[in-house]
């Protein structure tokens, strides 16, 4: 009976893992970011709530600046918006702590995060991250009650 329980638990755990993988395909394959550059929403929310913590500069490169304190650039798939982001980045030191996010759609379908991350890479920034919103800003940020712009 004990063995059966272990077996059942293993199957459930494996299924959950497989399901998670199917829902959130690996972001490693050719994307302009590494796993280390993915910032968890919980970590950013914690930083934003801590007045003593050094605050990153957060850019929304999607439809709306939902995250509290984030700067609205507009969809980075639009050249004018990408130029606007470049202008903002030109003012910053290369080691500035920068976070970008979109959150419209799962990463696999998002047209905005790649151009923004590619720009940051090409401008030789050394400390930039992508907010890890594998599903979208609602599921991964709003539904958690994380801080939002008014």
């Amino acid at each position, binding site marked *: 009976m004990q063995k*059966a329980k272990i077996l*059942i638990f293993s*199957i*459930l755990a494996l*299924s*959950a893992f497989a*399901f998670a993988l*199917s*829902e959130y395909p690996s972001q490693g394959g050719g994307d302009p970011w590494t796993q280390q550059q993915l910032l968890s929403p919980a970590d950013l929310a914690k930083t934003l709530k801590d007045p003593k913590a050094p605050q990153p500069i957060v850019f929304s490169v*999607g*439809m*709306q600046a*939902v995250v509290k304190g984030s700067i609205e650039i507009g*969809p980075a798939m639009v050249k004018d918006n990408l130029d606007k982001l470049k202008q903002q980045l030109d003012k910053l030191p290369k080691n500035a702590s920068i976070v970008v996010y979109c*959150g*419209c*759609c*799962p990463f696999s*379908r998002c*047209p905005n995060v790649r151009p923004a991350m590619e720009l940051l890479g090409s401008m030789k920034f050394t400390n930039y991250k992508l907010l890890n919103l594998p*599903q*979208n*800003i*609602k*599921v991964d940020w*709003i*539904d958690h009650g994380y801080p*939002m712009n008014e």
Partner: protein
Amino acid sequence: MKKLWLVTAFLVSNLPFSYGQSQPTETGKKAPEIELSSPAGKLIPLSSLKGKLVLIDFWATWCAPCVQEQDELARLYQIFRNLAFTNGKGFEIYGVSLDAKRQDWEGTIAKKHISWTQVSDLKFWRSPVARTYNIQELPFNVLIDGNGNILARNLHGEELEKGISKFLKK
């Protein structure tokens, strides 16, 4: 022991659905009211379409598959709009956009010649409707009968046409 295996198999096979868009949009439940404005600024409650078979289409211009689907919706709208259903006379689409910018929303409605009901609060994923309907991803839709009861949810492609046809009056 055999029972235990059956229970396990059931749990495992249903695991993905436990994460789905289930609670507020279960078949048979009353569709929650939506009261949003048209591009012209007219408040159009979902309940104003009572008596018709209604497809609530949650979409946005920034969602590529949603925009793509509008052509198929136009085709279905033409086929079904004046037909009688088992619990509804005529078919209407209630398009709820999760757009953030009015110009994007209105621009795509004009470009795609969308002629069915369109509403939005232009609040993107912060729209209270996204929470009420527990929307996890776009596109998402809900088919309701003339009394506002949910018949089906998240039907796309061939499944959508089949799903609507199923309720045609014979």
